[in-house]
């Protein structure tokens, strides 16, 4: 029982955590953006889901917020999701500032 608990704790420590996300319906498609912290690194996932359920996900790991900003502002749908993108990047910046003050796991 103790081992199971330990294993679960370890899993939780290791699990990537979702920092911010948004989902926006754009005509027949849905754009989903998720930013995770994975240990001391970050990952941006940009997924476009078609009407028939086909999905296309770009995965871009990064260390600096500027990389995520450049990726998301180059998105062809950027002008339609500008507000969500800035809010998402704002959350990322906040999390990165907080993370900078803590020892790296």
């Amino acid at each position, binding site marked *: 029982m103790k081992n199971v608990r330990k294993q679960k704790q370890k899993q939780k420590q290791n699990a990537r955590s979702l920092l911010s996300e948004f989902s926006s319906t754009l005509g027949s498609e849905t754009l989903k953006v998720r930013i995770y912290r994975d240990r001391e690194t970050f990952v941006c996932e940009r997924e476009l889901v078609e009407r028939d359920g086909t999905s296309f996900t770009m995965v*871009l790991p990064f260390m600096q917020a500027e990389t995520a900003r450049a990726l998301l502002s180059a998105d062809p749908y950027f002008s339609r999701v500008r507000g969500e993108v800035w809010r998402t990047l704002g959350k990322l910046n906040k999390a990165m500032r907080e993370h900078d003050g803590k020892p790296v796991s």
Partner: protein
Amino acid sequence: MGSRSLEAIGSFGDADDRISWISGYETEAEIEAAARQIVEYFGLQSFVFGALFRSGEREHYRYLVGCTPEWCYLYNQKKWYAIDPFIDYALKNTSPVLASAIPLNTAGQERLMAEAAEHGFRAGIVVPAHSGSAIRIGILYLGTSEGLECARESFLKHRNLMRAFALELLEWWDAKLRESSLERLDLDALDMDLLTKAQDHATAEEAAHELGVTLSRVRARYERLTRKLEVPNKRNAVEKAVTLGLIKSARWPKVQP
């Protein structure tokens, strides 16, 4: 990020080591950093690694971006995955190949290649990777803006390493998918055993007997599994588990006694 990934690759042995370390990396960032160095060792500049899988009628494309993101946006926006001749090649073949050796059959494919050339893939190499799951394949695109001779030289020199590299990337991504599915759904070893038994068409009674647990526990677990996987029955739970990488789909047929 691991300190190992910071060392430059100077020899075949280094590259071989770096590829064999992939399974030990924990994050996509480590994978991407290692991949950039390996691609550089190949004498190339860009890469995209895609994992493609089917769930029911739907197709899912997941790409690790090692090139200018604008290229991936354009490829996605034009829905070029639907006509990509390299995906078609990877579905039917296992050998790495020079991209120029794959015939282009439509004007759309010609346009795709012309745009690829503008985004760091003037010439390249396509490396298919097939996993234990029949519904998932990997495809590694390696590119150069320097032209066909550069790609050909790299291909002749590093063909086998490229194949190993693509396979390691696919296995890493499969393992990551499995790990995150297990965590998200909070499944344990008994759940996995029960899914495997269901895949083998074992009844609840047989599963209980073979796993040494009570029948009521098995039934409760199957109910919980269908709820967690958001499917109506055990059979669909098996299909979803395969899609999520929790269990393998293709099984070698059992020898009849």
